[in-house]
């Protein structure tokens, strides 16, 4: 025991003796134009603006956003830290954001997993750096701006597509990772409102906690318990491929219509093959590109790009077999392969 006490005490001592202020850059005098901006931990003068982009999981969707952040970084000459929480939990997002702030980023664009309960945490971060939400909003928080899809409109677009593929009506089932995420709720609401009064009924919503194996199992279970289901709708990006795989494994390709969200490669291939009716795509590339651009402006104290509503909506597109080739091509160009 005694052998360990000394080094451990030493460690505590090191921790206690570290400076209470983050080391300030030597030339603080050269730049005093920090105005009323939230003070970043390291107010560097002429060094590169450093901003961060935090996703809510590790889906392919974010690879496109990352391409967008890189383009903006190259154009503006700033540095972007792109972080994907592996477990996709609020706790992990919190740890990552704490570390980013320590690391001296001037602003963070985050897709919060649980906006309602996370308001206070986000406000804490917003006191230290510029915080904007992307992809999923936390409207009650003090985030400077939301940048992303109007998910209610996206849901309505999906609703219209469902109406088109089921002209005679029928039963549909929704699939999503977590239904308490704002974007999932808004999309579902959009679908519900569009389908209200039609002869299409929504059986329910199955969640998989972003476990892709479970997402497929959910689909297969649905096909067993509701053999007459006419259309399966995946609200999050990986739900599209999960539905496709589940339907294929159950030998029901072509018998059940599929409507997806987002542009996972398998989803697009499914549309080309005619197994998926269509997908509602957001524009994650724009999320990444515009988030970084906005954060870089905010870092300079320029708030002119933030609208009165504090919401910047990036429109959705409906991709069916007619548009899929052109869309895939643009996508490949954006990601660069």
């Amino acid at each position: 025991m005694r052998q360990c006490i000394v080094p451990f005490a030493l460690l505590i001592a090191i921790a206690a003796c570290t400076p209470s202020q983050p080391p300030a850059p030597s030339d603080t005098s050269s730049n005093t134009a920090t105005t009323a901006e939230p003070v970043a931990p390291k107010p560097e003068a002429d060094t590169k603006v450093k901003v961060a982009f935090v996703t809510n999981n590790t889906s392919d969707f974010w690879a496109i956003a990352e391409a967008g952040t890189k383009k903006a970084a190259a154009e503006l000459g700033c540095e972007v830290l792109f972080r994907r929480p592996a477990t996709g939990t609020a706790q992990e997002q919190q740890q990552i954001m704490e570390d980013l702030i320590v690391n001296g980023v001037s602003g963070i664009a985050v897709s919060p997993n649980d906006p309602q309960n996370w308001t206070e945490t986000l406000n804490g971060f917003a006191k230290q750096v510029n915080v904007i939400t992307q992809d999923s909003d936390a409207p009650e928080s003090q985030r400077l701006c939301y940048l992303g899809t109007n998910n209610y409109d996206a849901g309505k677009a999906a609703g219209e597509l469902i109406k088109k593929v089921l002209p005679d009506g029928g039963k549909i089932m929704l699939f999503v990772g977590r239904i308490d995420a704002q974007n999932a709720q808004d999309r579902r609401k959009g679908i519900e409102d569009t389908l209200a009064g039609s002869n299409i009924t929504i059986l329910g919503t199955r969640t998989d906690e972003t476990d892709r194996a479970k997402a497929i199992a959910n689909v297969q279970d649905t096909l067993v318990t509701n053999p007459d289901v006419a259309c399966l709708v995946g609200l999050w990006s990986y739900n599209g491929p999960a539905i496709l795989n589940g339907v294929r494994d159950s030998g029901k390709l072509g018998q059940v219509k599929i409507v997806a969200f987002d542009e996972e490669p398998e989803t697009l291939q499914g549309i080309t093959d005619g197994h998926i009716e269509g997908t509602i795509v957001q524009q994650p590339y724009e999320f990444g590109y515009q988030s970084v651009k906005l954060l870089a402006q905010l870092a300079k104290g320029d708030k002119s790009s933030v609208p009165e509503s504090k919401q910047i909506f990036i429109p959705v597109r409906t991709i069916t077999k007619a548009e899929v080739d052109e869309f895939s091509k643009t996508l490949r160009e954006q990601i660069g392969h």
Partner: protein
Amino acid sequence: MRKALGLTGLLFALVLFTTIWEAAHEDGTISFLTTPNIRNLLTWIGLFGILSIAQMLVIITGGIDLSVGSLVGLVGVSAAMMLNKGQGLPPIAVVPLCLGIGVAAGLWHGLLISKLDLQPFIVTLCSLFLFRGITRLITGDQSQGFAGAYPGLRWFGNGFIGGTVAAPFVFLILLAVVIGAYLHFSPAGRHLFALGANEEGARFSGIRTDRLKITAYVLCSLITACGGLLLAFKVNSLGPSDFGNFFELYAIAGAVLGGCSLRGGSGNVIGVLIGASLLNVLRNLVNILEIPSQLEYVVIGAAILIGVGLDEFFVRRTKTKARAV
């Protein structure tokens, strides 16, 4: 005890390496050893360290508790639901109730394992699913939180003493002192080690092994429940399906890194403290050194392997030395 030496060395090496790396790169500012980062680190070391200390108690008996993450989820979510954003029960009632959940869970495990002679791995694996299922059932899968209520109560999870020392870290140190005294300086603690090393032998020498085992599981779940409450206060956004997922693995990793043998009969509090610290330092430096997130688990996995390997190396060397003499 000697086992913790290699680990302490590794911890220091990491701290030093990170600092030097930071100093040598880019603008040379060192973020790792700044107050904000120390504050963050101490908080998370405290929160996860509590779980590792709890886990250590059952690992010493030769058992394991895989239900830690789910119990953290259940306790945290129950607390949030009962407090109901300031509309529900008062904290003075909620905290004992939540700790009661822990005691009940521990009693359940202990009885099944000692009286029915079921394997700890299986019993607690079932609890992992059971508790998670119950958590999702009672919430209807709706995320829970405190919505800014009870700042005083939540201070225990996210507060600081003197601006730097995180409240959960203080809790961890107090806990370590109490558990350390119990394990290393009390007859009951000695009995626990004896039980883990040789259960038959312990029973024949007059130790009430069943009762001791149940105590270990109750203590483990009770401390885990404390940890779960503090984690809930800190995180404040509790997804019923994911809050606490994998925490059992972090708890076990911290304990094993700290010198506990999964065969039972060995382990010490200081080692576990350092093991838990090491895990959190690793996770932290992935972000601080701007290592791509994809590599995070690689770094953690590799470092644990190195830590355990170093321990083994030191132990063997001392053994050979002893034989040579």
